[in-house]
């Protein structure tokens, strides 16, 4: 009896491709028989589920889903009395696939799924999950699987899922997938509209999708479609190029922001005292570690406010690194103003000491940061250009630092003193300015600014004891190029060097970019040894 039914069902399935896809019914018994059959029957059954998914009732789909899941997980037992669903692989009894009655599985065998059939079964399960699953995540996972096998899914399935979907985000994703599927639809009109729709939302992925279509026979046989396709590809290419350009500019700007923050403290210290602080990179590292410390404190004291730690870390990092800077100045550099070369070695020793101190005290591993929502993710703006919040945070942070530094230097008594000593130390001393105290405060200010750079780096870079080592050289190039003691020069040079690095990098690699920038700076110094914006100073 059962066998006859199976044969009939198989015959019915064989006849299926001749019928319009939407008309395929979902017969549970036939499906169970197919899945218990040989490799060809299993494939037929799985494909049948996909085809029928657009019209079948939710109950039928769920039942089909249970069968497919059981098959995929080796919980399907096939005997002469029909298919059984087991609770786990090798269980002694299970429920009948059709009636739901509990029967022993003694003489039943579990069919094995081949590699090709497994892919089909996964597609079918994904279609069922997309249409019937309870959780949004399960439906989204189903969509992800279906997108990978776009050619195997009828448009109607995705359209049904789109109409039934309640979650707006997932609904948009399904609409996108439906659009992609419509590109290979049999209806030429539908295909043309799909091309136009894809071209209206340009991205690297849509460009690849359209380009892949050009090789297909449909493009060759249908001149109208080929024209629409070429026009679509041209417009997407243009948009992607603009988007990539914007992305490069954005990266350059964020890199320049970091460079500026690393260099501005160095520029103030060097302009004022002629001392190069080789520990500047380590002050950046200290700023990042201070941020981490604030995060840990928040985690223990006020877990509810954890998202605010990055803001709270700003004054802490500034204060902590400024204090360390003032200590270094008071203990070491104060004695070395007449020997600038020795101050290089001394600050190098300080950097060596700080790196190893942190290494011993905290460890060498990268620190883990909880990313608050305002520095994670981003918003896609145009084509592939995504404005990521963490980089925007760095850019805004650098802009705020610039404004703050300008205010301090231009509008406060300390700033006035710093500018006076920078321009003419002897004359400033003659007028009664306490130059040594100003040096110390300025060194604290410069170090604190490095600490702020550390805060801005936390969401972007990996934070470990050695993170500061690369910064001094780049930052100093910025100071040299911009001209000593000029904030505007530092800004322009940071933008220039950051931009040059990011622009050259895709063409000839990161190393070549560094080489070209260095050679460029050395040659530039031939023409203007004082840098771009030489501060007026009297010696």
């Amino acid at each position, binding site marked *: 009896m059962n066998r006859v039914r199976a044969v009939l069902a198989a015959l019915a399935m064989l006849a299926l491709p001749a019928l319009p896809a939407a008309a395929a019914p979902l017969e549970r018994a036939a499906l169970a028989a197919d899945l218990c059959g040989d490799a060809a029957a299993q494939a037929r059954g799985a494909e049948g589920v996909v085809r029928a998914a657009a019209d079948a009732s939710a109950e039928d789909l769920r039942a089909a889903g249970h069968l497919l899941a059981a098959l995929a997980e080796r919980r399907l037992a096939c005997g002469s009395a029909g298919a059984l669903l087991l609770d786990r692989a090798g269980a002694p009894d299970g429920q009948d696939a059709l009636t739901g009655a509990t029967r022993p599985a003694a003489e039943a065998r579990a069919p094995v799924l081949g590699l090709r059939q497994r892919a089909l079964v996964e597609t079918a399960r994904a279609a069922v999950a997309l249409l019937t699953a309870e959780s949004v995540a399960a439906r989204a996972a189903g969509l992800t699987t279906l997108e990978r096998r776009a050619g195997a899914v009828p448009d109607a399935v995705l359209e049904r899922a789109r109409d039934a979907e309640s979650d707006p985000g997932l609904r948009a994703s399904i609409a996108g997938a439906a659009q992609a599927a419509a590109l290979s639809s049999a209806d030429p009109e539908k295909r043309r509209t799909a091309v136009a729709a894809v071209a209206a939302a340009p991205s690297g992925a849509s460009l690849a999708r359209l380009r892949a279509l050009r090789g297909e026979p449909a493009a060759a046989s249908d001149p109208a479609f080929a024209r629409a396709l070429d026009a679509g590809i041209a417009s997407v290419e243009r948009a992607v190029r603009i988007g990539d350009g914007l992305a490069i500019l954005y990266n350059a700007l964020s890199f320049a922001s970091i460079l500026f923050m690393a260099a501005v403290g160095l520029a103030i210290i060097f302009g004022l005292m002629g001392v190069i602080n080789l520990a500047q990179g380590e002050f950046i590292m200290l700023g990042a570690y201070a941020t981490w410390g604030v995060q840990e404190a928040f985690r223990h004291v006020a877990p509810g406010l954890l998202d605010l730690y990055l803001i709270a870390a700003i004054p802490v990092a500034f204060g902590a690194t400024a204090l360390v800077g003032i200590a270094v100045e008071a203990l070491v550099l104060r004695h070395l103003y007449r020997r600038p070369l020795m101050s290089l070695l001394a600050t190098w*020793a300080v950097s060596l000491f700080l790196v190893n101190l942190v290494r011993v005290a905290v460890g060498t591993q990268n620190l883990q940061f909880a990313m608050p929502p305002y520095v994670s993710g981003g918003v896609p703006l145009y084509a592939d250009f995504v404005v990521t919040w963490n980089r925007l945070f760095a850019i805004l942070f650098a802009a705020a630092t610039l404004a703050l530094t300008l205010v301090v230097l231009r509008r406060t008594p300390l700033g006035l003193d710093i500018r006076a000593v920078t321009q003419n130390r002897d004359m400033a001393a003659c007028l009664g300015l306490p130059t040594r105290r100003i040096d110390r405060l300025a060194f604290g200010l410069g170090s604190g600014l490095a600490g702020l750079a550390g805060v801005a780096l936390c969401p972007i870079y990996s934070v470990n004891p050695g993170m500061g080592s690369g910064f001094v050289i780049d930052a100093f190039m910025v100071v040299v190029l911009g001209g000593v003691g000029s904030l505007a020069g530092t800004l322009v040079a940071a933008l220039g060097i950051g931009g040059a690095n990011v622009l050259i990098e895709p063409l000839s690699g990161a190393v070549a970019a560094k*080489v070209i920038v260095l050679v460029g700076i050395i040659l530039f110094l031939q023409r203007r040894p004082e840098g771009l914006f030489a501060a007026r100073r009297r010696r």
Partner: protein
Amino acid sequence: MSGAVQTGLAASARVRRAPRDPLIAVLVGLCLAAAIGLVLGRPAPYLVNAVGQLAAFAILAVSLDLIWGYLGILSLGHGLFFAIGGYVCAMHLLAHGTVVTGTLPDFVQFMSWKGLPAYWAGLEHAPYALLLALGLAGLVAFLFGLVAFRSRVNGVYFSIISQALVYVAMLLMYRNDTGLGGNNGMTGFPLLFGWPMGSAGAVTGLAVAALLALAAVLAGTRLLVGSALGRRMLACRDDETRLRTLGYATTRLKLQVWCLSAMIAALAGILYVPQVGIINPRVLAPDLSIEIAVWVAIGGMGRLGGAVIGAVLVNALKFWLSAAMPEAWPFLLSGLVLLVVLVLPNGLLDLAGLRLRPTWARGAR
């Protein structure tokens, strides 16, 4: 000081009575004695090797002291010239080994190339390799020195730009397609002038060569700094503007000594690489180049003997401590630097009370 350079005539008149520096004589004597001791006494190979490496480092320190202590130019990129010597030496050893044994070096096989790159041609001949190493170091130094000194880049500016130079060179050498071994560098040298590399004869020969080279470099640089040129170097260090105003070509003077120093550093690299049996881009790390300045500062800059003492002491301590307690070494090194910089401006020579410093060498920055 100003009296010494009032006229060229006066300067050259005083050169003939160049003051003695007994420390140099002592050190040269020690080098020769150690060389003889190594040959006759046959100590354990690791000890011989250590002595040889220390001698190579001492040569490197002398090369830096020549321009820092006597010309006031602090190079934080001397690792570059050391590495040029080392890389060319490694290329010679591998090319020579390829000719003799017929097997290609590991990194060539790793990149699945058919043979050595074209620019390796002729490197199996030792004299050519030696010439190339010194010539290349001199050429790079000349080009860099020309653009730097011409635009009057000096002081800390020069130091940092030279550091950037060595940093960029390191990034460049980390690439695998340069034909120089990439980040793994070059190792597995089979032969040295036909001797197997690790044999006692080769080890002793290298150490003795390094000691003799150190003695020769010390004697040669001592003659140089005592000559009229040496006087001009000191004058340039103390007041370059005045010397230039007096009609001396200070740019050419600095360029000459800078190139000489680079070539001495390359010589140190040539002697160093066969002793350790490997060279890789880490030699070009900026930290290592700063360390050379640290040896000189610790030993006592502006004294050739001080550079030797500093290099030998710091590296001997490093050999010992890196094995005994590696965590403590960076702290000790930074403490030592701060101590020397703050308390002993003339290095350990101050501490030893060896105030044999000739009056004309005072005033170094």
